[in-house]
């Protein structure tokens, strides 16, 4: 049994310690907003926060998350950055599959850098693949969220 705290709730999950956090969250905690994209930390679709820091949950063993606070897309709206991003993200979304990861990366960026430049955004977000290529609007969305937060 692995004990996890996800979005402030406690979970007891019957998974092997080497199970990636992603699959513990999706298949066992049944929180499916965090997406499986590549399985190798190459696309960012699985991004969650571990004690506030963005990590790729597909390549993080669940055992590492024990005793820490996991935040997923289902809980990011409770933070002020997450809430504002979700409010301004209307024009961004296309297929939506990568957007959980985009929002989690964007929330972490804005928390550490409340007024990012385009270069800051490119650097922080280039690990998040969007095959619909919503990048132009992700950039605009982050600027809009930054403005609203300030």
């Amino acid at each position, binding site marked *: 049994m692995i004990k996890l705290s996800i979005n402030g709730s406690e979970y007891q999950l019957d998974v092997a310690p080497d199970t990636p956090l992603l699959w513990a969250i999706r298949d066992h905690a049944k929180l499916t907003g965090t997406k499986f994209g*590549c399985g190798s930390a190459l696309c960012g679709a699985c991004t969650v926060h571990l004690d506030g820091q963005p990590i790729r949950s597909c390549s993080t063993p669940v055992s590492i998350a024990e005793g820490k606070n996991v935040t997923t897309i289902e809980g990011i709206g409770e933070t002020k950055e997450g809430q504002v991003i979700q409010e301004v993200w209307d024009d961004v979304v296309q297929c939506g*599959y990568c957007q959980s990861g985009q929002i989690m990366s964007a929330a972490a960026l804005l928390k550490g850098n409340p007024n990012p430049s385009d270069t800051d955004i490119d650097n922080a977000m280039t690990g998040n693949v969007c095959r619909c290529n919503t990048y132009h609007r*992700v950039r605009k969305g982050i600027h809009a969220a930054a403005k609203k937060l300030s």
Partner: protein
Amino acid sequence: MNEIRTINRRDFLKFGLAAGTGLALGFHIPAQASESTATTATANATFSPNAFLYINADNTVTVISKHLEMGQGAYTGLATIVAEELDAAWGQVKVVGAPADHKRYNNLFWGPAQGTGGSTAIANSWMQLRQAGAAARSMLVSAAAEQWKVPAAEITVQDGKVSHGDQSTTFGELIEAANKQAVPAEPKLKDPAQFRLIGKKLPRKDTNGKVNGTAQFTQDVQLPDMLTAVVKHPPLFGATVKSVDDTVARKIAGVEDVITIPSGVAVVAQDFWTAKKARDVLEIEWDDSKAFKLSTDDIFNQFSELLNGKGAVARDDGDAVAELEKAEQVITADYRFPYLAHAAMEPLNCVIHYRGDEAEVWNGEQMHTLDQAMVAGVFGLQPEKVTINMLYAGGSFGRRANTKSDYLVETAHIAKALKKQVPVKLVWTREDDMQAGWYRPANMHRLSATLDEDGMPKAWQHQLVGQSIIKGTPFEPAMIKNGVDHTSVEGANNLPYQIPNLYVDTRSPEFGIPVQWWRSVGSTHTAYSTETFIDELATKAGKDPVEYRLALLKDHPRHAAVLKLAAEKANWGSDVAEGKGRGVAVHESFKSYVAMVADVSVDGNSFKVDKVVIAVDCGVAVNPDIVKAQMEGGMGFGLAMILNSEITLDKGRVVQSNYHDYLVTRMSDMPDVEVHIVPSAEAPTGVGEPATPVIAPAVANALAAATGKRFYNLPVRQV
């Protein structure tokens, strides 16, 4: 929702459409709502005037989308058309996905088949949904007229409110009375000047769930007793299973079964990670005696030889061959295009619950009726015994419209072999997805031209070679004519430029690599070769690339208009700094016209696309912001063709496996982009695909302007 009435076929209403297609507005509404969008149809009464919408007592209007929402905005666009003619308030409108039903939900451009593709969702639904919305509105008005005892002509409807003088009511309050009204045979459609929703930026209907994690993709389906399957596919195309040792795999706790199926060996387990761990310890011996074992270079060498021989003729105006033979100077170039993977963000997956005498499918469903028939075939059922739940797709770019229903058939074989009749979810890893084939076919083109004394093209010969997408599929009778697969030559055989001697032919060798349509299909390569070659001819003639094209587009005003608009908005002709380049391209695909001007910077061997200005003519822009989003996104998708995307083979093995070696456009590659829409009263055409083929030639032409070099092999990677 069992209150919804069903009626007999004889009660169906036939509307005569301008295109001559009979439209049946059926009364039956599916009892099984899609999981894509939660429906709250809990009211006791429902007004369901036809197969495309129903209205509940809580005043919600639910539009039924026969098309897949895969990011392109179909749910929002289709709902806008219905809401417009219904005069509904946008806020009261919801959308659910339609089931498979060839009687009600066919793609009107595809004959007796339901599916989403070829940028047809809005275009084929335009009149159908306008009539569906107008019929419902007319019945609501009749109901109010009856209640208020006033002439129907005096009643107005706006933003979901039905009014007469001081009296006013909602759709929800009228549903009982509306149900008693006759369905109008020819509902009156709005004058486009009265459109209140079409042409406006309305919020998408799928945004909320996609920003808070609640949207349901196939990957997210959770059902009681559901198992997860992963499949070990053969390492070579065409190899088969010789023997399997699953002793170790079966000992892993949580593994339910290991099953040999036609496409490989499936491990079925309680969850994904268990299934994958067990797959990793399978010992499989493959029979590769009939497998495909060539490398990329072998394929291109064969293409090269084939180009020297004759092909099937796709266009022959004048006598281009003779003109080229007698010409003093012939300009010629060979182009190479690699295989490309779709690599949508959601790796392929599918859920099937086989119950013996019926089956239920959950899928990002792009080819309803074909998939239904193929899955039914595995189970030995009649197609109507297979229910399909259409969920959101996490991208597709054509991949989920597979001509052999490959991953659905794979799931069906697993479901059929299971001892317990429980739902099974097939999950492909990224590597499975990338290495399974069904690529945009590799191609070679040879372009040859000669110019007249004014520098204008006198003869143009375009020879193509690449695998046929259509051969051996159910689409062959309709889409291959005289040996020419339309999807191989589209964009080449309808070259818009006025050239007196124009010849196009194609060769379709067969290889064991499965190929498939990839966003914008044939235009992915034909737009590149034609638009870079015409640019090269303009340079040779010493003429401005925009003026040169315009001189050849006199009979194609819509091409010319987007080209002029893009050039004007990009300040074409203004100075370009040292180390920078500006290039242009224009192309029509799926009846939409797109021109792009790209600005690039070159630094040593590397280059970056700084800015792209796009002009599009897609007829009426139902939702201009979604049109813009598709232009931006389609452009970014196509940009990877010139930057970095490529699938190669080494003795039959696919070399690339994940996003580290199959490179795609990322945030840092994305240029600034602006989109301009040509105002139009023409019927709407599609926008999902037409931006994709235009960017690579625009960038290549910009690179040529900056470096003086022409680029004939994609991806370019370095200048």
